[in-house]
């Protein structure tokens, strides 16, 4: 039985801190078993319950193993491993009899803490992991400490962690990284997040407009473009089947521009995972960063599905170069349906209107025809364009874009729908832009004068959508409802914290999680070691070997030194006692022997006399005599330092 129940409780508390995040992740029976085992272990300490016999423990261990495999019944992966690890935490606790067992438990707890990164690497989890490591380290210190109080051990644990920080930073920056996600572990939860699909139908954009989820964040290298120029291009939809717009036409890669246009905008875009291949870029991207291709319709596509947060360095320019004239497939429409709309457009064509004039006519129709920008346009079936244009006249951006493209195509003007985001919110706390799902948007591009011209019908129906964002349209204020002052302040405060939190998260993502294989590589390159060249790789290897030799040499030297002078625990404890007395105003003279010191203390502080005398006698016997009880001395020093005076 462990001689000190209190210490065992402290160890268990540290284990609980380390295990807590897993409690919701592991199957119920695992969590229940761990808690029950810990409860029994506490009973062993405090109530004197028997340690389970060896055969029972073996059976329990085997049963746990079998249960885990039965439960998951598939190849061994992250969840199975964590479940097994958790069960071990419980099993080990009920066989803990000695300090050594408790050490094993604590080392196991470190391992459990690390497994958290397999689930989440976010800011909150990282902070909690640091706290867990602190708790486990403090418990480890406490296990070796003579005192009953926890605060000094926590402090020492924190100091130890702080001391390890430089090494951790060094490893973070220089430890070779592998391309791809951490250990190939995919975060399952990233699947099925909101975002665009590659079809556009009534309701597909408006369904996003209430989601405050972040789509991507943008760091502009230079000045931020005007708000009405912030069209984030994602998908170009080229075909219509009467109900939906979708991509059907084969695409080509865009010709590479060797010279970057002078009015370009350079920025870094950090895309939240959406499980698809397309990227978003400011109208219009002119170059494809590594790992992406630029299509001839001026959209960017990643070569890999965006399953984790990815950062791209992008360049855009407002006007792209002249491209080849589009073929008849860009005016294709279903053979029938929406007769009224067709009639309108054919009327424009018959009137001999040019492309510009037709666009203006369509915009004038939206502006003056009593159209309403609305999130709830009502359900439509059949000839949805006709219903929208001539009956309901209520719609969100996808309705307008869809209807306008239909009209233009009917009139023989090549046109297409572009889906993406419009606008974005600058975060003043991080000087970067947040683009949310609610900024989702759809607009039109029409072929005119040898290039594709961007036309946004929403701009004439709901100018405030472009000026202030979707929220201006959808929020109660935007809809003319007054809010009480208190609610407004509350809302502003919430906004402030939301932005601050987002800024913190963004920094974490950019600087910690975003430090990928590629960025490490570019760091090497900037330092003059290009791992992709033979010479650079050789230099890098040499440097690493040198660094390793230095570190190992230092460790070896320290070990050798410490072997030469083994730190005498008696001396250390006595030094602690002396420091305590020094704080109490009675420092030991360098040439003052222990008994003299004790007598002086007894003279100056008679109430301490007996305790000091005992302690010093124990010290003298240990250091100068042949006998002496280390445990007694340890306890005496612990008690003395713990007491108040």
């Amino acid at each position: 039985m462990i001689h000190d129940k209190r210490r065992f409780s402290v160890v268990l508390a540290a284990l609980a801190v380390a295990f807590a995040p897993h409690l919701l992740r592991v199957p119920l029976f695992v969590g229940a078993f761990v808690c029950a085992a810990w409860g029994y272990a506490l009973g062993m300490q405090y109530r004197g319950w028997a340690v389970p016999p060896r055969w029972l423990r073996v059976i329990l261990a085997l049963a746990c193993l079998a249960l885990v495999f039965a439960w998951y019944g598939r190849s061994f992966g992250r969840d199975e491993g964590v479940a097994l690890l958790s069960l071990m935490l419980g099993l080990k606790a009920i066989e803990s009899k000695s300090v050594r067992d408790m050490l094993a438990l604590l080392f196991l707890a470190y391992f459990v803490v690390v497994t958290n990164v397999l689930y989440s690497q976010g800011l909150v989890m990282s902070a909690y992991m640091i706290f867990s490591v602190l708790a486990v380290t403090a418990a480890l210190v406490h296990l070796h400490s003579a005192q009953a109080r926890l605060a000094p051990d926590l402090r020492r644990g924190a100091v130890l962690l702080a001391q390890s920080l430089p090494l951790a930073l060094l490893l973070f920056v220089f430890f070779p990284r592998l391309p791809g996600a951490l250990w190939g572990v995919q975060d399952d939860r990233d699947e099925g997040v909101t975002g665009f699909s590659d079809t556009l139908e009534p309701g597909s954009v408006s369904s996003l407009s209430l989601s405050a989820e972040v789509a991507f964040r943008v760091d502009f290298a230079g000045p931020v473009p005007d708000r009405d120029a912030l069209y984030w291009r994602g998908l170009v939809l080229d075909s219509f089947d009467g109900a939906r717009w979708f991509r059907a036409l084969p695409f080509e890669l865009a010709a590479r521009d060797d010279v970057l246009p002078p009015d370009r905008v350079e920025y870094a875009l950090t895309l939240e995972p959406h499980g698809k291949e397309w990227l978003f870029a400011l109208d219009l991207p002119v170059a494809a960063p590594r790992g992406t291709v630029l299509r001839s319709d001026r959209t960017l596509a990643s070569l890999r599905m965006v399953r984790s947060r990815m950062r791209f360095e992008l360049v855009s320019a407002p006007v792209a170069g002249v491209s080849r004239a589009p073929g008849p497939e860009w005016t294709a429409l279903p053979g029938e349906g929406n007769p009224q709309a067709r009639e309108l457009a054919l009327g424009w064509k018959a009137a001999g209107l040019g492309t510009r004039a037709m666009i203006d006519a369509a915009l004038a129709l939206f502006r003056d025809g009593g159209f309403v920008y609305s999130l709830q346009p009502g359900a439509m079936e059949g000839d949805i364009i006709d219903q929208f244009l001539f009956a309901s006249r209520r719609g969100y951006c996808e309705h307008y874009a869809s209807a306008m493209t239909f009209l233009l195509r009917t009139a023989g003007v090549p046109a297409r729908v572009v889906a993406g985001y419009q606008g974005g919110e600058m975060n003043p706390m991080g000087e970067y832009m947040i683009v949310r799902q609610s900024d989702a948007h759809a607009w039109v591009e029409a072929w005119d004068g040898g290039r594709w011209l961007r036309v946004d019908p929403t701009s004439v129906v709901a100018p405030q959508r472009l000026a202030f964002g979707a929220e201006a349209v959808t929020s109660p204020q935007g809809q003319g409802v007054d809010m009480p002052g208190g609610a407004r302040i509350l809302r502003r405060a919430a906004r402030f914290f939301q932005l601050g939190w987002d800024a913190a998260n963004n920094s974490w993502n950019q600087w910690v999680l975003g430090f990928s294989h590629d960025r490490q590589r570019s760091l090497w390159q900037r330092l003059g070691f290009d791992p992709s060249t033979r010479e650079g790789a050789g230099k890098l290897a040499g440097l690493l070997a040198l660094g390793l030799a230095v570190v190992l040499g230092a460790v070896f030297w320290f070990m050798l030194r410490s072997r030469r002078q083994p730190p005498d625990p008696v001396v250390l404890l006595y030094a602690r006692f002396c420091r305590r007395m020094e704080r109490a105003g009675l420092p030991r003279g360098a040439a003052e022997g222990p008994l003299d010191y004790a007598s002086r203390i007894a003279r100056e502080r008679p109430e301490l006399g007996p305790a000091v005398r005992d302690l010093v006698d124990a010290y003298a016997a240990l250091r100068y005599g042949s006998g002496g009880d280390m445990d007694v001395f340890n306890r005496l020093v612990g008690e003395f330092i713990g007491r108040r005076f």
Partner: protein
Amino acid sequence: MVDTLRRALDLLGGVVLGKDLQLRLSMACLLARGHLLIEDIPGIGKTTLAKALATVLGLDFKRVQFTNDLLPADVLGVSVFDAAESAFVFHPGPVFTNVLLADEINRGTPRTQSALLEVMEEQQVSLDNSTRLLPRPFFVLATQNALDQAGTYPLPESQLDRFLFRISLGYPDLDSELELLGRSQHGGRPVLPEAVTSADEILDLQEQVDHVRTSTPLLRYVRDLLEWTRAGGRFVNGLSPRAGQALVRAARAWAFLDGRDYVLPEDVQAVFPSLAVHRLRPAGGTPVDMAAVLEAVPIP
């Protein structure tokens, strides 16, 4: 055993008043198999101390008054031809005793001084091709008058080393003085106490002192002390290794008197001034306080 010594010290304290430290040092000196040099003015109680010590410990006591015509034979003994036996018969000198009081040793000629000091070291007398062992224990208390008195031969430094301690008694404190003045019996002479132990027991105690433990940290401290006296040119000569060994022996005896079976730095510090004061001659003539030496060397 230690109780015996305590009792002896108590009894001595009743004879030599107010000189507990000096009594204790004398006792430690005896236990460490050393010899004691008392430097003081006449009439301060040196002889009383020596006599009382010998008596209390149940030891044989003799006294030699050194003068400048005292010959080595007067101290060591002499072989005289006995006509009746037709052989030389050795007449042992006063040195054949347990406790020898060599009074005013600096009045003797260097030759006589040397003869005595040699015997002190060897614990035997070699004369006429025969070696005679001195009784054991053998303990010399030499007294020395202050050096500025005329007609003296100061002991050379090499020979001062033979004495483990040099102490001075000094005037008694006021209370002791008063008590001394008030003594009326025996014409003011002190009543000598009876013996509480014997020569054999003293030998046994000396044996036990040898087994008092000296730990490595303590020896390191002694080493640092010796090192300090040698470095920095503070003294003409630093303490010799022999002095170092003597210091450890004396510290053992001191610890033993305290009833401990291990030596503490305090024991070393207690005996160091008496042990070093006659061995260290300050460079440049400025006296160096032995307490300052102790202050300067930290305990490891």
